[in-house]
């Protein structure tokens, strides 16, 4: 793949593919799960409640962790603001000391540089993510088809499928034959009883097979 006239390295391409596949597959999975969840809630199916076990504590804690974290953040916000104000006052007091102006200017410059760098990285990450998604969308269907074609061309798989199909057919035929043999015995037994004969032997030796 070309990007701005430069060829993308293989490592980066693989990273893009992995990232894009994870994102696309995750989105599709979530979409499918939403459909299933809606279907489940609309069906109104009620399951029997199991007895509470230690694992339920862990599951409950994990499922309520995001909401708990949000509440904790909201509680901590006023404290953080107060701390920030105190720190600001402290910094302003420090700025009155000799040489503090230079130090403040240097730290301001470093902070600006860091923000610029972070902005650059964010832009690159955004571009990378778009490229990853586009690559995954283009590659996944073709790779799936390629995989299926490989499987279909595999003589071992074909042999396996053939054996399984033969097995199913022969199992059905064997069942039919077993039924008919049972019916033979039943019919013969009935006739023997009607005629007052000895019931027929189950397996009469006919001849030795050459």
């Amino acid at each position, binding site marked *: 793949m070309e990007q701005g006239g430069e060829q993308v390295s293989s490592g980066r391409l693989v990273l893009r593919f992995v990232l894009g596949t994870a994102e696309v597959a995750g989105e599709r999975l979530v979409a499918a799960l939403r459909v299933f969840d809606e279907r489940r809630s609309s069906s109104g199916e009620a399951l029997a409640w199991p007895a509470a076990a230690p694992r339920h504590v862990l599951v409950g804690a994990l499922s309520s962790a995001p909401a708990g974290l949000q509440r904790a953040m909201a509680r901590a916000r006023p404290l953080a603001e107060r701390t920030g104000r105190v720190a600001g006052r402290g910094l302003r007091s420090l700025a009155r000391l000799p040489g503090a102006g230079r130090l403040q200017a240097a730290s301001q410059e470093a902070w600006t540089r860091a923000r610029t760098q972070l902005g650059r990285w964010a832009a690159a990450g955004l571009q990378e993510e778009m490229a990853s998604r586009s690559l995954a969308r283009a590659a996944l269907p073709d790779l799936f088809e390629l995989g299926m074609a490989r499987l279909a061309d595999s003589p071992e798989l074909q042999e396996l499928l053939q054996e399984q199909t033969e097995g199913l057919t022969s199992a059905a035929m064997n069942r039919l034959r077993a039924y008919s043999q049972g019916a033979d015995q039943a019919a013969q037994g009935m006739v023997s009883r009607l005629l007052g004969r000895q019931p*027929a032997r189950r397996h009469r030796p*006919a001849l030795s*097979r*050459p």
Partner: protein
Amino acid sequence: MTSALPIPPRAGFVTRLAAFVIDALLLGVALRLTQWMLEGMARNLGRLAPPINLSAVVLAVWPFVIVAYLVVFWSTLGQTPGKWLLGLRVVSIGGGPLRLSQALLRVAGYILSALPCYLGFLWVLGPERRAWHDRLAGTEVLYVIKPEKRHEATKRLRQRLSAATAART
């Protein structure tokens, strides 16, 4: 020389009747198809030549077709399609496949068995499980016992799966 396979018992009445019905259905369908095709041909040919009742010709020829069907299948494969489906084989009483003369005699025996209200066929219900045509031609109908098929690819896959499971554990 005797093989390790068990000696198959003689087939009973129900299985033989089912095989007979399947053969009769096959032949009936073939007859109708042939009549239908030939009638179509006759209609087209009727415009050019004097019309021929091809359907009647087919009906006249059909008994010979049935005889050929039975004789050819018995003497070559030992089983008609109906008998194959039900897992039956017609063999000579001394063992081995039917000779042509035996097959022809067996067909003639069919007529003999059918004449007294199919009494000859009902003889299969006896302890010997042999109809009149079997006795006449010196034949018997046996269940085919097939050796179990070796499913190599399935076995290989199973082995691989069990090896992978063992390695993981």
